[in-house]
């Protein structure tokens, strides 16, 4: 198992957002996390990437116990994530974004005594990555001017720049038009080789097209886990979604 959690819990002032989750993600899988709004999917991601510390339980990632490790150390273990709420450097250009992400995989970042011209060696690779997510034409534009779906694509490029073993994508297709959704699905299919992907996704056709396993979360707990077909026909899942919708 590449990712394993045991009894993982997170409470915010008495409210339990993630509740005793035992998640196991197999190496090489695309593993989808689904569930109604507020089910705790993003909180679970934050626990896996060190942005939140668990109230209880443990997380191991690629054989390392990373419970309580800071985000930068987890990133350096080969775990990259994209954020649901787009989280970029508004004033930096797309090119600078990807160069920065590539810089993050090296030890060059500490060198305050050399010229930043050494970053030109990332120039071509950054261009390729932007091309892969369909943003090559916008490389010199500040990220703040992008449309929402384009920002999602840039998030993806940043995650890929780290050349991660584990890729955690929080709603990568949210806000994208049909064509971009398709391109993103194709992209995930291409980059998944040699990697493990965990995907939070509301779009069920995306889940159907990509996921080997699906875990359904509700009220912070694992409700059901199985293949897409198993999960889709499970009465508890149908109820959870209907219940979730009528409450919304």
């Amino acid at each position, binding site marked *: 198992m590449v990712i394993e959690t045991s009894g993982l819990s997170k409470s915010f002032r008495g409210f339990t957002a993630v509740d005793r989750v035992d998640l196991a993600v197999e190496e090489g899988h695309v593993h989808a996390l689904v569930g109604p709004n507020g089910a705790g999917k*993003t909180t679970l991601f*934050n626990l896996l*990437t060190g*942005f*939140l*510390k668990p109230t209880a339980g443990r997380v191991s990632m690629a054989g390392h116990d990373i419970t309580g490790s*800071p*985000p*930068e*150390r987890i*990133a*350096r273990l080969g775990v*990259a*994530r994209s*954020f649901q*709420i*787009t*989280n*970029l*450097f*508004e*004033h*930096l250009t797309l090119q*600078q974004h990807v*160069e*920065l*992400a590539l*810089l*993050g*995989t090296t030890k*060059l*970042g*500490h*060198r*305050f*005594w*050399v*010229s*930043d011209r*050494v*970053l030109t060696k990332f120039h071509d690779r950054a261009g390729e990555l932007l091309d892969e997510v369909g943003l090559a*034409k*916008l490389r*010199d*534009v*500040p990220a*703040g*001017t*992008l*449309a*929402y779906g*384009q*920002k999602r694509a840039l998030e993806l490029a*940043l995650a890929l720049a*780290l050349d991660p073993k584990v890729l955690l994508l929080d709603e990568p297709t949210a*806000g994208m038009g049909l064509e971009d959704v398709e391109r993103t699905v194709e992209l995930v299919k291409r980059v998944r080789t040699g990697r493990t992907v965990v995907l939070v996704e509301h779009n069920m056709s995306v889940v159907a097209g990509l996921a080997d396993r699906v875990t359904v979360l509700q009220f912070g707990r694992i409700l059901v886990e199985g293949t897409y077909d198993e999960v889709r026909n499970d009465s508890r899942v149908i109820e959870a979604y209907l219940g979730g919708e009528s409450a919304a």
Partner: protein
Amino acid sequence: MTVMVVRKLAGLPLLWRVLAVVGGLLVALALPWYIYPPVAMDIVAWALFAVALDLLLGFTGLLSFGHAAFWGSAAYTAGTIAIETGLPFPVAVLGGSVVAMVLAVPIALLAVRRTGIYFAMVTLAFAQMVYFVANQWSGVTGGENGLQGIPKELFGLDLSDPFYFYYAGLPIALVGLLIAWRVVHSPFGRVLVAIRENPARSRSLGFPVDRYKVMIFVISAGLSGLAGGLYAISHGFASLQEVYWTTSGKVVIMTVLGGIGTLWGSVIGAAVIVQVEDYVATSGINIGPLEITGPGLITGLIFVGVVLLFRRGVWGTVAHLLRRRRSVPDAEPHLSGTTAPAVEQEPAVAPKS
């Protein structure tokens, strides 16, 4: 190939930069011909101090309100070395800088756990402790009297004339400015800007944000120390004023006045404030008791005026206007096909422990 040509043309700001550097050097060399030389030396020392602060405030987004600790401890150290050992003054200044950096390490380790106003408060608290120690430890610092009679030794040259001392001291400040420039235009400098813009995202790209902040804090303290040591040698004394909180405030004012995140702005801010204070102090303008009003009041008024008129500071505003005129044509065409940016919330990221 055409891409290369376009890039070259887009790199034309390089020409401006070279002109600015050459112009700046000429002004620096000519300064003591036009300005009373001790004041010229003050401008140079404060300029380096303000640039050092800008590395934190402008390039990393950290407001230190305790930089007097580094300027002042270096002033005392440089003074003591010069008096006790009689070594050439650049060695004494360097010694001051090293002590400032050593002092900065524990302060940085504790301060970087906080951000915003809390960071400012932690740095201020430490600087007040340094002030307290300097006041008590009068055997070394001279207490209220300060450290007097600091010699300007340099291989037996006679530097008692401030005009000549200026040219002996200027290279030290220039080296300091060069270091600041190198740091800003390095891979490290890129990461600093990323940290300023979005620390949480920087961490998820694998950058240990706190370690970067400690590093730049220590570099900034070292440059502040160079400036403080130079100042003490130039004046021939170091007083409690050097570690007092108003010194921390004054350098913040200079940096903000000139425009943060620009380096040049800090230099201009320092030149303006030092000259205004010198003018007020020597012209006999007197609005009530000097400790309350005097130079400080005028400085404060100018500061408020500039901040209200130009949000980016003097240099920041000029640079912005120039950049806007240049970059409108090359940034705009790419924007077709994008819709208005979505309104973003703050990333939902927990505070680090």
